[in-house]
């Protein structure tokens, strides 16, 4: 009896390793060991593949806390959460992470590896793909089936539908194209497993990080964005936007066009566009922004777009749901006053 049970279990596991399709999601931490918002969008994309999902978390600390948060997404079919926690992952350098990810892939033979379109995943996943001799797929906007995806090309002016023939498909997911996964709604508990590999990287070292600390939400997850262009004319004038954003604490933040950033009116990481951040808030207010193709590429998925510009012929008005032709220096203070009264 006993030997028969072993035999049947062995048979099952052999079949599993030969043709069992499964997905690995590169989950990410943010400050304090919390789960990064983009991981929730990535989980939704992964779930659309309709396969078992394992997650892996790399970090120097608190990966267990992050895993506990992940466990709450019971409807995503997460079977295992791998924790790669080691002081050697400081800075999450690609040279430290990729070899360990490669080992994990060799042991588990995932058919799909997904990460959010973050600087971390964008650094690691293509590097991993090269080592596996497969063509990575960047910033998908839709999962059509287990080997077909959509993505933007030419700054979002064309949609490419592609089919991958690779045995393992390595994919980054455009966060704003997928709803964030919701907690609960399923059953079963993900198992947590420690990855006992020590990073061995003598090629690169982490020096320092300068991240804007702010009480305002991140651009990628803010519900409302007030975005300024070159017409703001100065760094000091950007205060007009911050004043507006602060009327919606915890919900609104400030963004900018490349022109405003290049002119030195605000920091680089406020830039929204093809080569900056991609955002899709509930409300995007474009202030003094003309609407160059490259800017629109970064915000066209916004649910409602409002444009305020002195020039009625600005291209931004073509994509705005609501437009106001007027001088922003008159409009903004008036708008702020009216909102304060509410």
């Amino acid at each position, binding site marked *: 009896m006993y030997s028969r049970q072993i035999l049947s279990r062995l048979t099952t596991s052999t079949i599993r390793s030969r043709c069992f399709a499964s997905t690995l999601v590169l989950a990410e931490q943010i400050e304090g060991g919390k789960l990064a918002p983009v991981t929730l969008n990535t989980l939704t994309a992964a779930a659309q593949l309709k396969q078992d999902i394992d997650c892996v978390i790399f970090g120097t600390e608190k990966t267990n806390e992050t895993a506990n948060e992940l466990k709450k997404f019971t409807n995503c079919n997460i079977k295992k959460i791998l924790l790669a926690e080691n002081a050697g992952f400081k800075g999450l350098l690609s040279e430290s992470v990729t070899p360990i990810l490669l080992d994990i892939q060799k042991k588990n033979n995932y058919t799909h590896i997904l990460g959010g379109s973050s*600087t971390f995943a964008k650094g690691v996943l*293509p*590097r991993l793909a*090269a080592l596996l001799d*497969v063509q990575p797929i*960047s910033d998908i906007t839709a999962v059509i089936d287990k080997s077909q995806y959509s993505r933007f090309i*030419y700054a979002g002016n064309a949609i490419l539908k592609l089919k991958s023939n690779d045995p393992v498909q390595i994919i980054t997911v455009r966060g704003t194209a997928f709803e964030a996964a919701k907690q609960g709604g399923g059953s079963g508990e993900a198992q947590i497993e420690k990855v006992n590999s020590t990073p061995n990287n003598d*090629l690169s070292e982490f020096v320092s990080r300068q991240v*804007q600390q702010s009480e305002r939400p991140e651009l990628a997850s803010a519900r409302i964005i007030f975005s300024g262009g070159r017409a703001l004319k100065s760094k000091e004038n950007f205060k007009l936007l911050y004043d507006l954003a602060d009327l919606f604490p915890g919900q609104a933040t400030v963004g900018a066009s490349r022109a405003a950033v290049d002119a030195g009116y605000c920091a680089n990481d406020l830039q929204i566009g093809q080569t900056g951040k991609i955002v899709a808030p509930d409300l995007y207010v474009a202030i003094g922004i003309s609407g160059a193709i490259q800017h629109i590429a970064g915000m066209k998925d916004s649910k409602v777009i409002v444009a305020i510009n002195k020039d009625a012929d600005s291209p931004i008005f073509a994509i705005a749901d609501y437009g106001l032709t007027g001088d922003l220096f008159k409009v903004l203070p008036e708008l702020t006053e009216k909102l304060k009264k509410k």
Partner: protein
Amino acid sequence: MAIRILVGVKRAIDYAVKIQVKSDKSGVVTEGVKHSMNPFDEIAVEEAIRLKEKKVAQEVIAISCGPPQCQETLRTALALGADRAIHVEVAGKDYETLQPLAISKLIAAVAKKENVDLVLLGKLAIDDDSNQTGQMVAGLLSWPQAVFASKVDIKDKKAEVMREIDGGSETIRVKLPAVITADLRLNQPRFANL
């Protein structure tokens, strides 16, 4: 010891052109459409030339993979100050299906053959928006990578690179030979079209 740099330059549809999808949806119209050097590659070339001017680099080699028209792009790189230009010919149907993985293998092979200390690429090409080639070249060569660079300092066979990341910037140090990809604010190219 002054280093030798390989800079990748891609010929892509000019950033100001309004692209059109072909009526049979098989691709984007490229015939008769203005092409230029990918803007991020202009920034990479500029950085390489500046390193030469600072006498950190002794030679800058430009490389492009594609049809004969790529030679225009390579000539631009030479005019900007590159010492040599290598054209890896990929024509016709092959070029239509040429993807970053194959391009990375080509660049990696040339980097090895030319024994360079640094491969400089634009962070992405504005046509396919892939943002993969630099990372893949580094992976294939087992070299460190510093992608989305906004500042590069080379000293003692190492590159200290400030890079743009979500929410701010970070500084890393990589041993040479390495791959660096240029982000928007790395420099302001001379004679730029933008």
